[in-house]
């Protein structure tokens, strides 16, 4: 029976970014993102920071470790 899922938001300090040189465009991150804020542009995935709830799921899902949290400022 379906139960549902819960995601803890706000676990990361900032929205993570995709390192284009490591991304293979496999879309694992896109499929796991509960906020639907990852898009595939061309052959690479890209995180749209405005919609990011900073749960860190994409970070753990990425098989190429292409996603990392940056220590930059929070999005405007």
């Amino acid at each position, binding site marked *: *029976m*379906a*139960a*549902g*899922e*819960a*995601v*803890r*938001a*706000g*676990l990361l300090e900032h929205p993570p970014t995709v390192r284009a040189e490591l991304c293979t465009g496999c879309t694992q991150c896109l499929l796991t993102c*509960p*906020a*639907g*804020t990852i898009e595939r542009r061309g052959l690479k995935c890209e995180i749209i920071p*405005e*919609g990011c*709830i*900073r*749960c860190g799921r994409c970070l753990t899902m990425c098989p190429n470790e292409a996603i990392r949290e940056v220590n930059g400022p*929070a*999005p*405007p």
Partner: protein
Amino acid sequence: MASGKRRVVVVGTGLGGLLTGAFLARRGHPVTFLEAQSIIGGRFTHIDYQGFAIPTGAFHAFPGGVRGHLFRCLCKIGVHVSLVEPAPSVMVAVDGQRLPLHLDMTRSQSPVLRRLVGVNRRGPVTRSAARMLIAGLMGRDLPAAEGMRRIGGTEAGVRLLDRLTKFALSVPAEEASAVELLRSILSQRFGREGFLIHGSGSMIGRIRTAAESSGAEVRTAAPVRRIIVEGGHARGVEVEGGESLDAGWVIANAGVRRTLGMLGEHAPSRVVEQVATLRPACGFTHAVRSRNRLHEHLSIEIPLDLRHIDGIMPVSNLSRFLCPPEWHFALAYQWMDPAEDPEKQLEAGRRELLEHLGSGAEIMNTACYHSHNPTANIAQMIDQHGKSRPPAILPGIEGLFLVGHDVQGYGTAAELIGESCLRLWERLERA
């Protein structure tokens, strides 16, 4: 009809009615939902307005998250939802700072917040709370604010509790029942706020689908005139227009007052008297939009410096699905003092809110619930604890069950509906 299965009529499709109807439909009972309005979901749904998910009441949230009662209800009927639980659950805005407040017990609070509210060590606080709970259960309840002072709370601490009780129980801390609050928190196992990422309306749609796929029928614009009672047993309902529907069980989710009205002379006089003394909760919800980002965090903001606004939910930070992409969207709750002029409170609240959220913010809608509107919940007040909230099963009438926000139960905000449903479902399964 399979043996032992009763025909069920659900009067009203608020959250409690829909959940209970879907539960019974999944267990093989033929269920008919009758809704007076043209939309289902009552105060737990939203209306799409120009792409903004404007709630009819609740803020797209489960106050107990995955540990709460509502989530358990959904598990029982096989409805899947995606919840976001912000960490921290609450941000206290005070003197230009944002202090995190964790609602789960696994995280300790920041020293700054602990100093501000004056509640420092966990051990003595737990012991005091346990003493208050036991005393309250024995009939010596006290206001939540008084309880806060007893555990060493400062004025800021009492003010914070006041905002939280208004947000969660629709009563100021000076009037909120400490036992009610403690039991509610305990019953939902210290669950933390969970936000429905696709909105409350989408969840209501899924519950409806679950019920309909189990054979239930949903009729909208079908107000019920009366509940037919014969020989102390609810036998069905009469719909406006004269049609009657027979039922083995009637689930009433139209508000206690209105249900008693539908019962006419069969309404138990003790409950009628009891309900007449109850005070309904009243408040405003403001829907705010802006082209600029309204918050930097994902948590419910409790603006301690404001006088009227109790909490702000940063909707668009938590979900991109509930407003147009070029906008930011937030919902604010304002408790209404029934003793004062609503217009003046509203004006003050709106002014304060816009000032707090900065330039670019505009209030696109303000909803108000007030007076004896059948859907207004009953406030969880000190003098109303336990003895005053009407029971789910009315004395002297068999086969009639009350669900919704104004029947006996524990839990903060909508969780109370889930708790009373779970208890009722256990009884119905045994019946």
